[in-house]
């Protein structure tokens, strides 16, 4: 492990996680204190943003090995259907559906991953897309009594707080329910963040980067690409599977076109690119950013607000080619350019425990975009 002899630099990412957890713990109450009844709606919006963050971060973990998955809708749907099926056919506690959803998604990832090991780049992407579409079709054609077929299945809610007339207002019931879901999502996000951080801090990070940069060379250097790729696949699918299960309860139903929607896959891939790839913070910033942008545009403009959304995407990628977080981090690192400036490269965008010796070699090693003829 090539940590600098001068000792580990400040663990910004751990601090970030703690701050995140603390903020999440108090967020509902703060919102409620500030906005009263309207906090129900805001909490819902924030929860949707968390959902996107989980999706984006999970996708990013797989992308770190260079595998661009277009199958994430399949994992999401698998999680959703797992919990719905369990609810319909088994007499088990409802919440078990969530980890079960994760497990089933992981199994599918294992299946898909092992079949597509030899596929690269867009060939891999299309194969995963095909897999997801076939899975959607299977859900569509499943016998109605068993899995709902084209009519889908109802899914009972996870939380149904009781309304006591006279002691509380109706919106407080909604608040309690949204708060409960918020904590579940926040917990799921924290879990995903932990996994991502663990990956970034370990040898696996370099293994993944090596595979992404050049899989064959990585293999020659002893990285064992197959194993790493499957591992990444499974880790990536687990979060999304659990997310699908929770959302099924929150939304109240599973339907083939809804649970396996291509839009889920597209969001999974667009968000991390926007926020900053191959980092823990990037996808999260991307999710919060895109959710806020869309919500803002919805409220300000009437018709055609989505045009603004598209413009934001286009402008961002043109002016911030490394994504929001990546570009900020890059600019920060470049301020103190050169190894003579032992500036703590603990940039907001990097998860590197930035020791001074990494500053110079940072860009080429981490950033495969710095290929010959590309940007430095």
């Amino acid at each position, binding site marked *: 492990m090539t940590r600098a002899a001068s000792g580990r630099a400040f663990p910004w990412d751990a601090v970030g996680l703690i701050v995140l957890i603390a903020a999440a713990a108090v967020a509902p109450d703060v919102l409620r204190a500030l906005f009263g009844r309207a906090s129900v709606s805001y909490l819902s919006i924030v929860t949707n943003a968390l959902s996107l963050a989980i999706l984006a971060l999970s996708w990013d973990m797989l992308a770190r090995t260079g595998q661009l998955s277009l199958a994430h809708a399949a994992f999401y749907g698998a999680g959703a259907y797992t919990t719905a099926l369990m609810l319909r056919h088994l007499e088990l506690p409802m919440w078990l559906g969530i980890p079960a959803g994760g497990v089933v998604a992981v199994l599918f990832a294992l299946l898909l991953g092992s079949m597509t090991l030899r596929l690269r780049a867009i060939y891999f992407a299309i194969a995963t897309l095909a897999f997801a579409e076939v899975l959607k079709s299977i859900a569509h*054609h499943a016998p109605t009594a068993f899995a709902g077929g084209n009519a889908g299945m109802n899914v009972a809610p996870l939380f149904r707080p009781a309304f006591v007339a006279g002691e509380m207002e109706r919106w407080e019931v909604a608040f309690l329910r949204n708060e409960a879901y918020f904590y579940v999502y926040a917990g799921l996000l924290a879990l995903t963040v932990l996994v991502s951080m663990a990956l970034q801090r370990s040898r696996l990070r370099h293994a993944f980067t090596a595979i992404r940069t050049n899989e064959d060379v990585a293999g020659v250097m002893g990285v064992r690409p197959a194993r790493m790729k499957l591992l990444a696949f499974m880790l990536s699918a687990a979060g999304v599977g659990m997310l699908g299960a929770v959302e099924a309860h929150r939304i109240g139903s599973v339907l083939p076109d809804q649970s396996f929607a291509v839009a889920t896959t597209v969001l999974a891939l667009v968000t991390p690119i926007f926020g900053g790839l191959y980092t823990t913070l990037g996808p999260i910033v991307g999710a919060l950013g895109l959710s806020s942008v869309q919500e803002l545009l919805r409220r300000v403009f009437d018709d055609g607000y989505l045009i603004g959304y598209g413009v934001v995407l286009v402008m961002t990628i043109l002016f911030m080619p490394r994504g929001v977080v990546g570009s900020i981090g890059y600019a920060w690192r470049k301020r103190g350019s050169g190894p003579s400036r032992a500036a703590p490269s603990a940039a907001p965008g990097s998860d590197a425990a930035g020791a001074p010796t990494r500053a110079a070699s940072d860009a080429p090693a981490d950033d495969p975009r710095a290929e010959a003829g590309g940007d430095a």
Partner: protein
Amino acid sequence: MIDPTLVLQALVSGILAAGLYALVSVGLALAIGVIGIVNFAHGEFFMVGAFFAYQLFVSFGIDPIVSLFLVAPALALIGAAIYASTIRFVLKAPELNQMLLTFGLGIILQNLALLVWGGDPRTIAGIPYRSVGFELGPISVGLVPLASFLISLALVLGLYWMLARTATGRAMRAVAQNRVGAALVGLEVNRVYLVAFSLSALLAGIGGVMIAVIQSPTPTIGLAFTLKAFAIVVVSGLGNIRGVLFASLFVAIAESMVATLVPNGDTLRNAVFFAIIFVVLVWRSRRIA
């Protein structure tokens, strides 16, 4: 016993349906396959072409056959403009950046169309040839599917020929193989990309005009075709233009067979299509070793 006429009809319908698939895919084959631009907005170019054909018909009474020659260059210009203002800057960036950029462009186009034409499906009414079918014995051959098949054949072969035999085509292939090297030998790389991308948009526009005749244009009409177009381009192998035709034929015939011979078979079309794509990709990857 399976009726042989039914099978024959399924075969013929499948072959003709391949024409539409190839038509939508050939432009994308040029973009991704030849010059390496992953254009998520391809379906939207297609959609814009369809709406242009519709508008020309409604405002000026121009038949789609004629408006083909107006819409195609219009789309080429739009493609050029989009390339020059945005795509040019992400060429050196990772593929993912291109995906996000073109995805954003796609959203803009789709919602612009929604703003201008609304969400209701539009119809180019009043053209007499949409439902014309020829009876060749017990087999029915539709005029419009036949036309789209012949057009797509012409376009695919034409594109292939252009890439193989003309200077422009060779320049495109050179740039795709080695951008720096191509610049070193004196090719104006930017111009080559511009021409290629505009051509890709033009081809999409032609497909759009066809679809405006066959269906009712809506802002979201692009999606279903885009996914399949990507799959066809990839499965035929990037850069293999003629392969697009064969891939289209294969999947379209398989879809048609299943749709005809299996009860409720039409609902299995997508499953069949993507299952074939998946199996072919995985199987081929194993044989490389």
